[in-house]
C-alpha cells in the first residue's frame, strides 16, 4: 500500500499554566512534580477555543503545506476525547471551515489519546484502495483533568492534522507500514455525562501505556525486520515527559532519537494531539532519508505504530505554515485564577 504524507499542520493554544501555579493551589511540591513528570508547564485553551477550533487551525496549516485544493479531500476524520458535541460531528465543522464540503465523507473518532492515529490508518486504507484521493486525519483535544487530580498538571490542549495521499512526487514522507496492538484494558475512562475522566493511578503505567506502546513498537519492528538503529527519530505518545523516554530506553532508542519529538515537557499532554504534534516537530527539522518511528497510545487500550521515511518534498513544504516550535514559543503564562475562568470552572 503505497501511501504517504502530503501535508501536516499543528495548532497549540497560546496560554500556559506552570506546574508551580497548580502545586501552589493544591499543596504539591512543584520541584518534585516537575522532576517526576519531566514537565514544566501545560497549554490552556483560551475562552473561545475548543477541540473544533484547534482542529480547524491544524487542518488549515496542513492544507497550506500540502498545497492541494481542499475539494480533493475525500475524507476527514477527527479524533478527540473532547469533541464539543456528544452528537454532531466536529469533522463537519472542520470540513466546512477548510472548504472541503460537500463531496466527502467525514466522521469523529474516539479512542482516548490515539483516535488521531486511528484516523491516519483509516485514511491509509481509503487512499491505498483508491476510494479517495486525499484523506485528512486530525487528533485534537482540550483535555480534562479534575481540579486537584494529578491529571491536572498535564491535561493540555492542542492538535495535529495529517493529509494522506498516494505516495509520489507530492508526498513529503512515505508511510512505510503500520501495526496496531489493542486489548480491553480499563486504565483510564470517562463515562457519559461526566465532566472528568477517572484513572487507575499507577495502573495506567506498566499494564497500560508501557505494555501497549512496547508491544506495538516490537510488532512493527518485527514486521519490517528493523531495529531501533534503523530509525533517526522516535516519537511516542507523551502523557508526561518521562514515559516516552522510559519506553524508548526499554526498546533500545537513545535519548537523542527521542528528544526532538518530545514536546510534552513544554506544553503538557495534548491527548489525541500528542503523538501527532511530536511527529510534526520531527518533520519540521528532519532531512530526506530520515526514518521516524511513531507510536501512539490510547487508554482503553491500544497503540498504533508507524514507520515513516522522510522524502525530498519536505524541504519545499515545511515552511508553508507555522512550525511546532513557533507555537511552543508563542506563549502567555496565566495564573490559576485565570485558568479556572478560561476552563469555565469559575462562572458568573
Amino acid at each position: 500500500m503505497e501511501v504517504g504524507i502530503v501535508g501536516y499542520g499543528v495548532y497549540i493554544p497560546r496560554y500556559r499554566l506552570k506546574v508551580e501555579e497548580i502545586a501552589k493551589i493544591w499543596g504539591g511540591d512543584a520541584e518534585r512534580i516537575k522532576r517526576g513528570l519531566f514537565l514544566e508547564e501545560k497549554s490552556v485553551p483560551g475562552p473561545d477555543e475548543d477541540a473544533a477550533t484547534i482542529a480547524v487551525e491544524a487542518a488549515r496549516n496542513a492544507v497550506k503545506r500540502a498545497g492541494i485544493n481542499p475539494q480533493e479531500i475525500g475524507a476527514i476524520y477527527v479524533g478527540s476525547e473532547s469533541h464539543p458535541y456528544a452528537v454532531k460531528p466536529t469533522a463537519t465543522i472542520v470540513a466546512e471551515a477548510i472548504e472541503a464540503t460537500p463531496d466527502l465523507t467525514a466522521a469523529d473518532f474516539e479512542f482516548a489519546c490515539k483516535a488521531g492515529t486511528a484516523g491516519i490508518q483509516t485514511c491509509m486504507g481509503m487512499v491505498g484502495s483508491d476510494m479517495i484521493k486525499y484523506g485528512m486525519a486530525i487528533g485534537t483535544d482540550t483535555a480534562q483533568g479534575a481540579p486537584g487530580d494529578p491529571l491536572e498538571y498535564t491535561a493540555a490542549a492542542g492538535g495535529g492534522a495529517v493529509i494522506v495521499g498516494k505516495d509520489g512526487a507530492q508526498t513529503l514522507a512515505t508511510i512505510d507500514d503500520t501495526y496496531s496492538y489493542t486489548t480491553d484494558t480499563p486504565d483510564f475512562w470517562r463515562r457519559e455525562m461526566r465532566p472528568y475522566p477517572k484513572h487507575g493511578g499507577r495502573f495506567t503505567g506498566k499494564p497500560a501505556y508501557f505494555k501497549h506502546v512496547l508491544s506495538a513498537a516490537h510488532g512493527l519492528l518485527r514486521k519490517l525486520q528493523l531495529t531501533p538503529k534503523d530509525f533517526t527519530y522516535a516519537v511516542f505518545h507523551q502523557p508526561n515527559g518521562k514515559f516516552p523516554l522510559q519506553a524508548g530506553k526499554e526498546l533500545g532508542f537513545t535519548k537523542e532519537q527521542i528528544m526532538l519529538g518530545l514536546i510534552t515537557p513544554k506544553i503538557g499532554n495534548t491527548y489525541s494531539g500528542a503523538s501527532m504534534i511530536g511527529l510534526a516537530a520531527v518533520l519540521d527539522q528532519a532531512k530526506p532519508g530520515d526514518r521516524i518511528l511513531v507510536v501512539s497510545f490510547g487508554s482503553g487500550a491500544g497503540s498504533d505504530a508507524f514507520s515513516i521515511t522522510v522524502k525530498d518534498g519536505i524541504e519545499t513544504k515545511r515552511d508553508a505554515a507555522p512550525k511546532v516550535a513557533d507555537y511552543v514559543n508563542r506563549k502567555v503564562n496565566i495564573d490559576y485564577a485565570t485558568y479556572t475562568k478560561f476552563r469555565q470552572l469559575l462562572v458568573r
Partner: protein
Amino acid sequence: MRKVAIIGVGLTKFGELWDISFRRMITEAGARAIEDAGIDGKRIDAMYVGNMSAGQFIRQEHIASLIADQAGLTPIPCTRVEAACASGGLALRQAMISVASGIHDIVVAAGIEKMTDVLAEQTTEALATAADQEWEAFVGATFPGIYALMARRHMYEFGTTEEQMARVAVKNHHNACFNPCAQYQMEITVEDVLNSSPVNTPLKLLDCSPITDGAACVILAPADKAREFTDTPVIIAGTGQASDTISLHDRLTLTGLAAAKKAAELAYKMAGVGPNDMDLAEVHDCFTIAEIMAIEDLGFCKKGDGGKVTEQGETAIGGRIPINTSGGLKGKGHPVGATGIAQAVEITQQLRGEAGKRQVNGAEIGLTHNVGGSGGTVVVHIMKRGD
C-alpha cells in the same frame, strides 16, 4: 493440648499484582507451602483463611468455599477469619488451636488480600471500615489520621522525633531489599521520608505502609508428627490474643496498645519466655510510629525509648533485637489479611536459617505481632526452632 509445628510455608510476590487474580494468588501461595512441606494435599484436614474485606475489594464474600474449591480441597472444612489487619494472625491462631485440640492433624493457615482492583480512595474507605464507624469513620477519621494522633502524643510525651520515625522506614526498606517477595526492594533515606508528601502530620507518605496484593500460607501439624515432613520444624511455642476498645478515644493511653501488651504477656507466659529471650520479631509497622510503639509494648525497650533504640540501630539486622527483617509492612507490603501469616513465614524462614542475606545469625526464637485496626485486636505468636 498438643504441641504444634509449622511444616511448610509459601508466599506470593507482594505488590501490585494486576494480572494475578484473588483465586490465583491463594492457590499460588498454597501450592508453594504444600511443596515446601512435601505433603500430599489429600492429607490436609482443615483450612483457616484470614481476609479482611474481599467483599469490599473484589465484591466476593464466602471466600472460604471459593478457596477450598480453587485449591481442590473440598470437602474439608474451610473457615474465613476476620479481624481487620489482624485477620491473618487470627487465622494462624485458630488453625493452631484446632491442631492443638486434636480435632485436626494437618491444617492450613492462610491469609490473602487483593487490594488493587479498586481505586486508591476506595481502598482507603474500605480500610476505614476497620475503625469505629459511628465514632471515628463517620467524622472522617481514616487510619493515617488515627495513627497520626498516636504519633503526636508519643512525640509530646517521650520526645520521639520525626527523624526517629523515618529511621523505621529506612531500616525496613533496607531489609526489604534482601527479600525477593517484597513490594519495595529499594533503599530510601531519612531525607526521602522527611521530604515525602504529607499524609496526616506528622506522618508522611513514606511513614505509611502501602496498598498491596498478596497471599501467604503456612501448614501446621502436631509437633510429634512434624519430622515426617521436614527436618526443620518450627514450633509455635506461644499464642496470645487480646481485644481493646475499637475507638482510640475510649482508651486510657494513646501511646501504646493495651491489647498488644496483654497478647504478648499471654504468649510469653505460654512459651515460658520473656522479651529478652527473643532473637528477632516481625511487628505490625502499618505506620512507622506503630513499630516504635510495638517494640515498647512487647518489652524490647523501655516505654518511650522506641524511637531512641531505633535510631541507635538496635532493631537493625545485626542489632540487639532485629525487627522486621522481612521488610515489614512498610517494605515488604501490607496485603492486610495476609500480613499475619506472612510474618509467620518470615520467622519460620529465619529459624530454619533460610533467610539469605537478611538472615539473623543463630536465630532460635522469634515473635510475630499482628494488629487489627488501631489496636482493637492484637495477636502475638512465639516460635521456636524445633528440637
